[in-house]
């Protein structure tokens, strides 16, 4: 029988499927539709120290094989999360990634410190959200600012720290190397690509915030390339994300070196798509005589 187990640094996951931040809430909603304990892991909606109400105006726009979102990190704040959402997650036998964003370095540090007192499996440091003017992605653009924020985050927590990088970074490989140098336990990439849509009738951007983040199958070829480039240049494990929709996509990301993958936009295609992917992945491994994904990881 195929064994889907993967080892992400010190963390063992029963399979490589992690639900991507912002597409899976805090698990509850999908948990009402199917048995989400079959998943490898869940990344929470991006949290900030203080509650945020997110962006005004249109927040979603469909593009060819993709979507643009401009949620703008709406979230209840770390404290409310810990009180109201974490208990549900902690009752689940899945790996929990707490995704943290922020405006200032201090915000990040404080939020991480708070979460680190709780039972959570990993911190996913989001320095790549293109939807918030005041920060988030700004940290992920240059190698210097990446270093600053990762160093501060590293000092703020004993939990495994995964840094979620931006495809909008000046140099994605350099950014990843910096994360490794600063002691990150892993890397998640990619977040959404900064992009835009126009309402030609109103003669305006669709989004109040002007730009938004592109995700979905449209960006898969870009994500795959970035994951490959990064995996060739760091030794810490990588979570591949961007447009993954089928089990074949998962195999591709593993072959370019990802240790596990995240499913984001595809959740919107069909709520139980992760189960279809798991089934396909298992059938593939059986057919190819692959006992562990280790055998094909990074072979390209």
């Amino acid at each position, binding site marked *: 029988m195929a064994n889907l187990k993967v080892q992400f640094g010190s963390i063992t996951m029963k399979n490589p499927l992690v639900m991507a931040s912002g597409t*899976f809430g805090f698990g509850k*909603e999908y948990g009402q*539709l199917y048995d989400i304990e079959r998943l490898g892991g869940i990344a929470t909606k991006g949290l900030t120290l203080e509650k945020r109400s*997110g962006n005004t105006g249109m927040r979603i726009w469909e593009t060819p094989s993709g979507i643009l979102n401009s949620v703008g990190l709406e979230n209840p704040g770390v404290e409310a999360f810990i009180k109201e959402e974490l208990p549900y997650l902690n009752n689940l036998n899945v790996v929990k990634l707490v995704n943290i964003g922020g405006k200032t370095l201090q915000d990040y540090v404080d939020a991480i410190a708070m979460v680190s007192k709780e039972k959570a499996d990993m911190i996913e440091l989001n320095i790549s959200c293109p939807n918030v003017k005041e920060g988030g992605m700004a940290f992920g653009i240059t190698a210097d600012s990446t270093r600053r924020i990762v160093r501060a985050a590293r000092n703020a927590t004993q939990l495994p720290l995964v840094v979620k990088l931006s495809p909008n970074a000046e140099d994605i490989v350099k950014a990843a190397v910096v994360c490794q140098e600063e002691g990150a336990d892993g890397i998640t990439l990619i977040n959404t690509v900064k992009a835009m849509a126009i309402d030609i009738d109103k003669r305006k951007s669709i989004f109040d915030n002007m730009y938004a983040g592109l995700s979905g199958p449209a960006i898969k070829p870009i994500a795959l390339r970035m994951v490959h480039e990064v995996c060739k240049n760091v030794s810490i494990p990588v979570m591949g994300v961007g447009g993954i929709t089928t089990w074949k996509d998962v195999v591709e990301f593993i072959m370019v070196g990802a240790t596990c993958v995240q499913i984001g*936009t595809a*959740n*919107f295609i069909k709520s139980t798509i992760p189960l279809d992917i798991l089934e396909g992945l298992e059938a593939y491994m059986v057919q190819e005589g692959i006992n562990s994904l280790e055998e094909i990881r990074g072979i390209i």
Partner: protein
Amino acid sequence: MAKIISNREIAPDTYLMAVQGKYSGKMGQFYMLRSWRFYPLLSRPISIHDINDDSISFLYRVAGEGTVLLSQLKTGDELHLEGPFGNGFPELKGKVAIVGGGIGAAPLYYAAKALGSSSEVENLDIYLGFREEPLRLEAFEALANKVRVQLGGNVTELVNPNSYDYIITCGPEAMMEALYKKSVGSSAKVYVSIERHMACGIGACLVCTCETKSGNKKVCKDGPVFLGEEVYHG
């Protein structure tokens, strides 16, 4: 995958589609529909128009790419649907009016059926406004004694809020807002059904926000039905 029983164009660009199977759902709830695989990416939210023992039906207007694809479905073709989602209209009592505008009539048929057969409802009146051609008029007329139709112009003008305890409405935002404004100070509480572009449909992605008096609400989960005063505040 469910099978299409029928999919008929009952008015220009407006289809009534029946789908085989046992489905659950309250009035005002919706399903996420797709008859395609990966393109276009998102499923389309469509209200429950009616539910019978072994079928569910949807009434929809062809708006763009997705509804064009739905309109091309033939008997026996397959449809993927998930639901029921959303809060739906609340159970009501006393004197109730239903006010629909255009394709906003879609969820109101199932609502009229439920309210019409409720022992708590003393009186049910239906007001429907259409630009040109009425939708499902005979079906509505079978459910209530008073069904008034306005072709062109403003259906809200026909409604006297003081005659009702509750008004439920679905249609263009401008119509719903006008109706709510008209009801302020009257005996009627107004429930409106709000539309937003959706992705997950279940409250997980936060893209379908409606700003209300009590903060951001998710139309897919906290809605689509809201009290008029919640939405049309300020």
